[in-house]
């Protein structure tokens, strides 16, 4: 049961990884990367590591993605001081 | 032996050989003239020349080194001669050969040349250094076969002692180095041509290019000194060759005959070849004669 879920999620994650790398649109790429982390946190849960799952969900898919988006925003905006 | 007697003997020896050398020079000039179809000067002409130049009223000096140059030259001739035992067994003609061996004689030859070169240099005439440069260069070249021949002899007789070398050649004509070590003799005789600066190796004096070369500024007594030396020095070299290669001499006539014949060799070669250019001359000596010299060493040392 766990194996099947992991395999399915794994395939999705790998596709997401390729998308994250190859998508021209940076925002989509960032979101794909976030999806990887999100699914990873599910896998952690399945692997009986709830602490890690929580952390991954909060940090990996949450904060990291947000930081990426902030960066993108700063760059897109172009009104960077300096 | 009392040193004063030794000096007396040396003076006699020097006088005899100087007279002989100058006469030889006169004879050569005569021969040259005859070969050219002229009557030529008297055989005693060198003596007359010396007296004439010495008597000149005007005497010019360019400085003290210029002054000393001819003296160095004559001292070189005298010294070279005095370190050679001239006649085997003769006390009078043994000179100061106890002071050193063959190497001393070979290096003393340079004494006069160097001094003369310096004196001429101070003369300030451009032909002097030109001639000297040529002369020194040629000297380095012809010294090579000669020194190789000397080494061959040193190997052969296992000594640099001239008296011993002559002694070893006594007894039979076949004991002469000429026959025991012909290659060395050939090499040395070729370099003798250079030493005597007769054509084709007369690049130093080269009358048409740099009229008379180094001594160009020399005059009156200076020139007379040089002329004196020419007789003495030529004879000294011939005696050295005689001792090394032609069995030496046990008395004065034999010495005269032998040296005369050796000299004639270079005279005849000189009369029949045109002059080399400087680099040709150097190349010449550094090629065949050198190879012959090397061959003589290899032959004598390893066979």
């Amino acid at each position, binding site marked *: 049961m766990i194996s099947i879920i992991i395999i399915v999620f794994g395939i999705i994650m790998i596709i997401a990884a390729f998308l994250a790398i190859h998508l021209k649109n940076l925002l989509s790429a960032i979101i794909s990367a976030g999806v990887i982390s999100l699914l990873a946190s599910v896998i952690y849960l399945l692997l009986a590591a709830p*602490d890690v*799952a929580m*952390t991954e969900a*909060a940090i990996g898919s*949450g904060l990291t993605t*947000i930081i990426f988006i*902030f960066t993108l925003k700063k760059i897109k905006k172009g009104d960077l001081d300096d | 032996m009392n040193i004063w007697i030794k000096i007396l003997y040396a003076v006699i020896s020097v006088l005899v050989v100087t007279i002989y050398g100058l006469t030889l020079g006169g004879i050569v000039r005569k021969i040259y003239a005859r070969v050219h179809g002229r009557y030529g000067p008297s055989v005693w002409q060198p003596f007359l020349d010396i007296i004439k130049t010495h008597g000149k009223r005007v005497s010019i000096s360019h400085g003290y080194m210029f002054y000393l140059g001819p003296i160095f030259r004559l001292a070189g001739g005298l010294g070279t001669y005095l370190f050679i035992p001239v006649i085997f067994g003769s006390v009078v003609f043994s000179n100061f050969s106890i002071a050193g061996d063959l190497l001393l004689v070979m290096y003393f030859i340079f004494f006069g040349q160097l001094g003369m070169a310096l004196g001429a240099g101070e003369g300030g005439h451009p032909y002097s250094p030109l001639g000297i440069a040529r002369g020194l260069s040629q000297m380095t070249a012809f010294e090579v076969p000669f020194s190789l021949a000397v080494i061959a002899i040193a190997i052969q007789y296992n000594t640099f002692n001239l008296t011993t070398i002559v002694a070893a050649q006594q007894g039979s004509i076949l004991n002469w180095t000429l026959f025991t070590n012909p290659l060395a003799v050939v090499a040395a005789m070729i370099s003798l041509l250079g030493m005597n600066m007769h054509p084709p190796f007369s690049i130093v004096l080269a009358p048409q290019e740099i009229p008379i070369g180094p001594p160009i500024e020399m005059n009156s007594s200076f020139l007379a000194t040089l002329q004196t030396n020419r007789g003495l020095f030529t004879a000294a070299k011939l005696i050295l060759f005689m001792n090394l290669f032609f069995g030496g001499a046990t008395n004065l006539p034999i010495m005269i005959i032998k040296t005369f014949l050796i000299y004639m060799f270079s005279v005849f070669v000189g009369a029949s070849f045109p002059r080399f250019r400087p680099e040709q001359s150097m190349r010449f000596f550094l090629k065949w004669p050198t190879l012959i010299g090397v061959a003589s060493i290899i032959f004598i040392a390893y066979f």
Partner: protein
Amino acid sequence: MIKRIFILLALVGLVLMFIPFLRDFDFHKELSKLSSQYVEGSINDLNTQNVVTSVIVTYRGLDTLGEVTVLFLTTAGVGFLLRKKKASLKTRRSSELLQTASQFLFVLIILTGIFIFTHGHLTPGGGFQGGVLITTAFLLLILADVNLKFNYSILHFVESFSGVFYVMIGLFGFLILGMNSFLDPTILPLGNYGKLLSAGAIPVIYSLIGLKVGSELTTIIDKMGGE
């Protein structure tokens, strides 16, 4: 093109290097000796339900101190990198509704965060997860563009003092219990197993971590997202 080939070669090489792990990997059936000791120690010595917490806060407390330091460094680093010569003031008010809603959510999320890190020794999660939640609350404010001037002083204050207290608690153990007791939670009574006030100083430490992580991450987010 040649570069592509090399990249391919590199990746193939890596695969070859890792293949033994996949081919010969022999999964353990039992806990390692060390882990068993941790599990047992967690029950017997530390009165901590969550073994991961006891490992993080106590056994590998030095790591966690380092980890907090890493975050702190990142705060400093990001702040250092994105330092501004002049603070630009630009305000744009968003709708009233959004603001109210986000302020409500803000309080809620903060409370949840606090709950998570105070229960770190009992339930999954702890200082880090709670800290992140606190950050999320602040993030909400930022996103809602609430013209709420962060009181940076308080943020800095919390950040600094939670860190200092963390170090000090560590040093207490060291001073009270001896030179091998840096970060020893037994400076406080261990309490009853499974209760909130148990596990010695673990909840205190985890709470401090939570505060520190929260304030640090907030600073990072603010530096990167703020104007």
